[in-house]
């Protein structure tokens, strides 16, 4: 029972990441009609906002110690962190909280990246076939990851979570069980809560603001909205920026779970496209539902008991479920008629 509960928790935090990326993908597809294969790269760029902020916060003053030499005969380096020297304990806390603080950096950076990407490249492909959109955005993703590799190297770069969230929560004790039966990392619980908040905020923005109402109207009937004098293109550009921000902050918060490297986006890209298709192209609730559902299924499929019955099922479960769902419901779980059917 405890194993099932733990795998359920695993599925929730994994599903949270899938849902956040798929949400951004669906926003772009629903508004602009663009199949954006560079969306995974936006998740990766967000993660590298966290890396960059930490690099800035941990910049060090280097003093050469001429009396002590390295094994290769050069003076050893004595390093002190500027921030900690200048601000003392406050500086130490800044470094400690570098990952959550990086959200403040990622929001404007990703907004700019999203808008520039849309205005500079994507808009030229609005009326082109989806195959061409896929090719150009996939190419863009490769360019972005090679740029990151050039500046940050190919190795993963660890990003520690705040020290007070580094341990594991004894959820079993909270539920009246013996200690150490159900323990789960604090940061994974934080990530799940974070993904729920971000998803809720995006839905609230679209549901309860005038801007969101216009965007939804544009998604339903772009021409009619244009006919009443609203510049829907600008709003859709803003939505592309918003999708980039959602992917970026998701990437920032994921860094303590998976030390980021240049390839991080590609690791998620295919999976999240499956999530979008299973949820129904253009359906925001469908993307979220499918994200969590596939995350949970993937976790359960990794259980030893399940793998003993069907070896290797953990590696194909998502695609297997996708095939079954698409056979039963060709438009996905919550897909609407007419989307990608022209």
């Amino acid at each position, binding site marked *: 029972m*405890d*194993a099932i509960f*733990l*795998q359920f928790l*695993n*599925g929730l*935090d*994994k599903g949270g990441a899938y849902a956040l990326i798929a949400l951004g993908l669906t926003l772009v597809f629903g508004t602009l009609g663009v199949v954006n294969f560079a969306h995974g790269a936006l998740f990766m760029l967000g993660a590298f906002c966290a890396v960059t902020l930490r690099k800035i916060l941990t910049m060090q003053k280097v003093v050469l110690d001429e009396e002590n030499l*390295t*094994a*290769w*005969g*050069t003076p*050893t*380096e004595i390093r002190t962190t500027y921030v900690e020297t200048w601000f003392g304990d406050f500086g130490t806390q800044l470094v400690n909280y570098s990952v959550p603080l990086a959200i403040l950096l990622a929001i404007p950076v990703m907004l700019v990246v999203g808008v520039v990407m849309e205005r500079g490249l994507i808009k030229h492909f609005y009326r082109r076939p989806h195959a061409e959109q896929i090719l150009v955005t996939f190419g863009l993703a490769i360019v972005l990851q090679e740029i990151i*590799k050039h500046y940050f*190297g*190919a*190795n*993963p*770069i*660890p990003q*520690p979570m705040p020290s007070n969230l*580094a*341990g*594991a929560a004894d959820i079993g004790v909270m539920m009246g069980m013996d200690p*150490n*039966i159900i*323990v*789960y*990392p604090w*940061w*994974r619980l934080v990530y799940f809560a974070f993904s729920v908040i971000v998803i809720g905020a995006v839905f609230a923005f679209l549901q309860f603001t005038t801007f969101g109402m216009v965007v939804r109207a544009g998604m339903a009937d772009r021409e009619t909205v244009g006919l009443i004098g609203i510049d829907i293109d600008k709003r859709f550009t803003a939505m592309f920026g918003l999708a980039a921000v959602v992917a970026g902050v998701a990437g920032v918060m994921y860094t*303590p*779970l*998976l*030390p980021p*490297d240049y*390839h991080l986006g590609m*690791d998620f890209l295919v999976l999240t496209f499956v999530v979008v298709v299973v949820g129904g192209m253009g359906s925001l609730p469908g993307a979220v539902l499918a994200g969590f559902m596939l995350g949970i299924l*993937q*976790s359960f499929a*990794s*259980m*030893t008991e399940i*793998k003993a019955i069907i070896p290797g099922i*953990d*590696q194909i479960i998502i695609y297997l479920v996708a095939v079954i769902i698409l056979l039963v419901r060709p438009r996905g779980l919550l897909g609407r008629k007419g989307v990608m059917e022209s």
Partner: protein
Amino acid sequence: MTERKDGPSRRRVLKGAAAGLVTAGVAPTIITSAYAQEYRNKPTGDSVTLGFNVPQTGSYADEGADELRAFELAVEHLNGEGDGGMLNTMQPSSLTGNGILGKKVAYVTGDTQTKSDAARASAKRMIEKDGALMISGGSSSGVAIAVQGLCQEMGTIFMAGLTHSNDTTGKDKRRYGFRHFFNAYMSGAALGPVLGEEYGTDRRAYHLTADYTWGWTQEESMKNATEALGWETVETVKTPVGAGDFSQYITPVLNSGADVLILNHYGRDMVNSLTQAVQFGLRDRQANGKDFQIVVPLFSRLMAQGAGDNIKGILGSTNWNWSLQDAGSQAFVKSFGAKYGFPPSMAAHTCYVQTLLYADACERAGSFYPPDVIRALEGHKFDGMGNGATEYRAEDHQCFKDVLVVRGSENPTSQFDLLNVVKQVPRSQVEYDASIFGGELGPYEVSM
């Protein structure tokens, strides 16, 4: 009575026999030698080209870059540039800093991408188009085995880089392939006794294993070594290479009854699985009345950087570490550090040594002719290149030398001080019978 003179005289019989012997024995040698001088990429000018096949893109690009630095340094030293590095400590040595057999050493590079097909294609290109006489490098057993097979077909010597699977010099060994790096069996044999000393003989181990040739042989070796100690293997679980998030494989460990987690992972998988295992509180956990332990059988300093603080106190094994104090290691670290500003990795060390060993074998053979060079390497004993006295065993082309058991530094004194040597396990403890892993080396002579 008249003596018959018409039969064969004793002298004629002897002359005939001698002529026959000469024809049967010497002539083929002459013919073979004449034929033998014609081989692929025989150097005709004043230089000889070596091919360095390393991952320049992909997940192991940083390791590949370090290998390439080592190759460049080795070429410099062979050509008499720089401080000479291990040319000054290698014993015995026929190298003089005058290239190889008087020919200046040049090199070309290829990108393995850590993919077998790409690695074979780049090796083939270097052999066929660039005229490479020897291929070296790589950061994966899958790649090493694939390239080694190609080199056997093409009659080009392959001096493997970082490859740790037993199969490379076991069931997939080849006459034209040589491995200086240690293997999974040696990791198990070296780590086993240290694990017994540190964690006792009453332990229950859970394995997470990368699902490919290296992972399988690493798991088998660790399983054999720990079970020989009296440990029980609770479960062995294969994980997909590049899984990223290992949480669904780690949670079953929590209540499995195991008190040791052995991570048969390398590279990004090692970084991710170790980081996540620590996040799940495994290192702070008690199981069966003991402190829970994590073991990483194959450590690399470059990869350890990715795991950050999570590597502290974790036991593992490594082929070589820059902190070794023998003259060869110090000479190499000094040359490499002076040129690049940081110490070399174990991948760099093995690639540097392999290049020098190949060059030395050519000098000793007095020829670039591959079968002669192979014979010079087979059974060759040397010292002064780190890890003490070493032998290239003739039966499987595996180097035997001391193996290092290391622990993640608790209090690093620099950004490079990530692994502390716990024990230098003597070669005798990690040796094994070449026949246990099967395989056939194949012929010396191959048709071009």
